[in-house]
């Protein structure tokens, strides 16, 4: 409480601030000064929201409610700020603050700021609104508003047909998700009492849904629908298809928000509906979620490795990370249904920590991609290279981001994956045999995903920043502006800090897990040496601080020893390369060739790979060609047939547009006769 206002009211004020920023963006739009004003103001408001969220989380404030007289008639718009909301407000606005700060610098390169600025504020407002909404109508309204605002940001570069296609697909998938959630809410709320009285639409509030849990079958259906609805926003396979198209299409700081933050709002929706609103859920739905998560993680990263467009690679990597989060959530569901609070708390904490971590390093990496884009005008990794020399600062922070996302100790990505593994190792406690067997398999998938993520980011970093520049554009790169660098550095610092001191964040999650799983992990800050001990020291523990200190000391000692003992002379020379003379930069390993072994290994099964080699005969001087094509199974097996079905259906039905009047009359006549037959048959 500040100045007599409840926390949620402050949150709404922040949201109003974002709306105001959006409005001022619309008004100022074309002025040069608009860019710094809009982003600067967004930064300030986002920071305020972060402070609010931290206050609620650390102070473990009780949930606060506000009902505004808008929205559902008679019932009003319910807003509620509890710890779950607060945590996601923290994630969203931390990302938003970084993106806004980054935008102050990056936004200057935007050719048509009038198409970005109004929607930027609206987008931030929409995301925050979703987190505070506490009735189905307000929730979905905000949810869809968020989609709409971000759609406008996706189609900013509207002259590129790829943007437009991405926008369409995005909006379609978003609406699909919204309608799935709507169905879920409908099932949870029940048909509703008569609205003649004063009751209004009260059955559509979360409070009412919580108080009167639906029939079991409805709750199970609602879980599946929530998985579809939230998953389509978060990017679960096979609902991820829009993500790799839409995220890259937007300006980079917006991509960072879309990928790092908005997908988390999807996660929030799932958690809110399934863990909070729906009441007790069948343990088997946990299995469904875990499997969906595992598949998503592996497929996402496999496709990420294959991408040559840097931002698409990052978008696919988002798919992977969302999968990891959902593994944790599914485990938590299963544990909770089995009445195992501590294990559920562990799984939830793992998922939430990964949510936070991913928002940090994915934001950082998209900023990095944006910086590369500004510096070289290229997103295509095959045209980059050697940027470590021209963009030294960016190279350092992006390296931290890459190592974090590849789940390498002692950085933050590892901590959350480690916790997820620990949760997986609790699976023998589950009563269902199916789960006992399935969960370790998912663990293997997670391990595969983690290892492939390493490959993926070695490739991304190696091709873009290391080696030699592949084009003049890459050679002529320059370091980006201070705002961008500051934003990236801040995120990188947070990645390192959370990696070293994860206990602080895990403690912050305790109230959440207590609310959702009925149990929390033991307080971590009190553990000696600041270790992370999810269950008991004898079971498992990890200490990022000690590992980091050891690494630091070991490296220092090695360096000192070498300095004292070894020769310090260094000679510069052209690379040796097994004796080949240094040829053109194009002989370097390219993005596609780096991914080749993995493409081969998983080729036909996962990628639907087709390769075509056109090798000239010896003595023939024409150029050889090698082409390959990957087809996402989601397109091959789901969207392709669906689209064909719609097209064919439309084609068949379209004949009805070209009938003669007589035939139309025949149609009317036939309908009349059928209806008369119905009447004749009616009792």
């Amino acid at each position: 409480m500040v100045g007599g206002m409840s926390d949620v009211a402050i949150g709404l004020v922040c949201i109003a601030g974002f709306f105001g920023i959006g409005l001022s963006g619309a008004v100022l739009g074309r002025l040069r000064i608009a860019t710094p004003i809009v982003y600067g103001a967004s930064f300030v408001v986002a920071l305020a929201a972060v402070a609010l969220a931290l206050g609620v989380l650390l102070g473990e404030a009780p949930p606060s409610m506000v009902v505004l007289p808008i929205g559902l008639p008679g019932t009003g718009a319910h807003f509620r700020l509890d710890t779950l909301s607060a945590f996601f407000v923290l994630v969203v606005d931390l990302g938003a603050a970084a993106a806004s700060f980054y935008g102050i610098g990056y936004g200057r390169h935007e050719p048509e700021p009038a198409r970005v600025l109004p929607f930027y504020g609206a987008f931030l407002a929409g995301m925050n609104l979703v987190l505070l909404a506490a009735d189905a109508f307000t929730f979905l309204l905000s949810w869809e508003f968020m989609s709409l605002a971000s759609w406008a940001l996706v189609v900013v570069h509207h002259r590129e047909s790829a943007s437009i296609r991405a926008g369409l697909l995005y909006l379609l998938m978003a609406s699909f998700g919204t309608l799935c959630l709507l169905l879920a809410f409908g099932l949870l709320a029940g048909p509703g009492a008569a609205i003649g009285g004063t009751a209004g639409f009260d059955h559509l509030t979360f409070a009412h849904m919580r108080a009167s849990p639906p029939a079991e079958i409805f709750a199970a259906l609602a879980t599946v629908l929530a998985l579809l609805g939230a998953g389509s926003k978060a990017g679960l396979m096979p609902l991820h298809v829009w993500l790799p198209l839409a995220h890259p299409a937007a300006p980079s700081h917006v991509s960072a928000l879309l990928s790092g933050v908005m997908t988390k709002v999807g996660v929030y929706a799932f958690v809110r509906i399934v863990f909070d609103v729906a009441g007790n859920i069948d343990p088997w739905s946990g299995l469904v979620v875990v499997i969906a998560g595992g598949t998503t993680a592996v497929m996402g990263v496999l496709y990420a490795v294959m991408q040559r467009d840097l931002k698409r690679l990052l978008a696919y990597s988002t798919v992977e990370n969302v999968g990891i989060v959902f593994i944790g959530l599914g485990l938590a569901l299963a544990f909770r249904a089995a009445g195992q609070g501590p294990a559920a708390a562990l799984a939830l904490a793992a998922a939430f920590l990964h949510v936070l971590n991913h928002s940090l390093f994915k934001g950082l990496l998209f900023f990095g991609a944006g910086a590369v884009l500004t510096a070289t005008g290229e997103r295509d990794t095959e045209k980059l290279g050697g940027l470590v020399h021209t963009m030294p600062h960016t190279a350092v922070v992006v390296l931290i981001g890459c190592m974090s996302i590849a789940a390498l100790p002692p950085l933050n990505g590892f901590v959350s994956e480690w916790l997820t593994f620990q949760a997986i190792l609790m699976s023998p406690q589950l009563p269902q045999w199916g789960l006992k067997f399935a969960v370790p398999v998912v663990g293997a998938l997670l391990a595969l995903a983690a290892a492939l993520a390493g490959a993926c980011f070695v490739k991304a970093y190696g091709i873009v920043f290391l080696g030699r520049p592949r084009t003049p554009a890459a050679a002529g790169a320059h370091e980006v502006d201070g705002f961008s660098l500051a934003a990236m550095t801040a995120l990188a610092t947070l990645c390192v800090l959370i990696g070293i001191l994860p206990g602080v964040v895990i403690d912050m999650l305790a109230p959440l897990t207590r609310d959702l799983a009925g149990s929390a992990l033991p307080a971590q800050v009190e553990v000696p040496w600041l270790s992370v001990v999810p269950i008991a020291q004898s079971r498992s523990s990890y200490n990022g601080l000690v590992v980091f200190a050891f690494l630091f000391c070991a490296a220092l000692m090695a360096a000192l020893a070498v300095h004292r003992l070894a020769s310090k002379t260094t000679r510069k020379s052209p690379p040796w390369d097994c004796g080949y003379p240094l040829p053109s930069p194009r002989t370097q390993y390219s993005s596609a060739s780096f991914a080749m072994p993995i493409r081969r290994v998983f080729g036909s099964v996962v990628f639907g790979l087709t390769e075509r080699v056109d090798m000239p005969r010896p003595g023939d001087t024409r150029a050889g060609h090698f082409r390959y094509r990957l087809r996402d199974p989601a397109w091959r097996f789901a969207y392709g047939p669906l689209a064909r079905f719609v097209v064919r259906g439309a084609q068949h039905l379209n004949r009805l547009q070209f009938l003669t009047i007589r035939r139309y009359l025949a149609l009317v006549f036939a309908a009349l006769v059928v209806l008369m037959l119905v009447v004749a048959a009616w009792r």
Partner: protein
Amino acid sequence: MALILDLPLQLLQIVLVVAIAPLMMGVTRKVRARLLRRVGPPLLQPYHDLWKLMHKEAVVADNASWVYRRAPYALFAITWVAAGLVPTYATGLLFSWSADLIAVVALLGTGRFVLALAGMDIGTAFGGIGSSREMMIASLAEPAMLMISFAVALIAGTTQLSAIAALFSTGEVGVRVSLGLALLALIMVGIAENARIPIDNPSTHLELTMVHEAMILEYSGRHLAMIELAAQVKLVLYFSLIACLFVPFGIAGSDAGPLHLALGILAWLAKLTLFAVLLPIAETSVAKMRVFRYPAFLGSAFAAAALAVFLRFVSRGF
């Protein structure tokens, strides 16, 4: 035990793993040479090699960045820390809880990440080949390694290496099919991770077959020494890991007296030597594989580990 006693014990382990690493490498080389009917280098040759490399001039490519120069130190530090945290002669050392089995595996992953980046820094074709193949192998080996961890951890109920070793050394777990499969898988993964035959050949520079060597092709002098030493430490790490997980006998308890500790050290050294002898025997009896046969090799390691996990449910029904 008090901190004042614990710290030296932990430090001793950390120092030991580095100190004897070249020796173990010397043993494998010697045995291997003998098996090939050669005399082979002396046992202490790796120490000489390192010393020599240290005192040579380091040749660095014109366009090398700081990544290239820092990588050897980082790689060495990471490998060293990982090795220092695996129980060798005693359980319950001061910092044994700071990283469990999964963290050790992941630390090795960090080392590989750094090395693969270093391989790509110069922008040569061979560096790229090496990095790309290394990451492919890793992406297959790491899941297998984690499956092994699962199998062991599910049996022991913990991922703490120290706790696992303490539990297994009591013998109450008994001999299990699960553990046998996990051991088999761990050996296969270890071979792949340490760039041994049949996955890689540490002593070849044949362009099309090299993996590890391709990445470090440009290194020389003190940088190369660091990388070589890291590779040797890594070998010791895997030996220690196998020893502590599958033959933990003789390992000293957390509150053991000096005598037990001494015994523990001896037992550990004996086990390492045994492995160092066995490794070249295995290596000389098989042929190097083609690159795209690796998935089958590592896939069977993974299958063995997965089977170990599932059998674990069968052999004891909780």
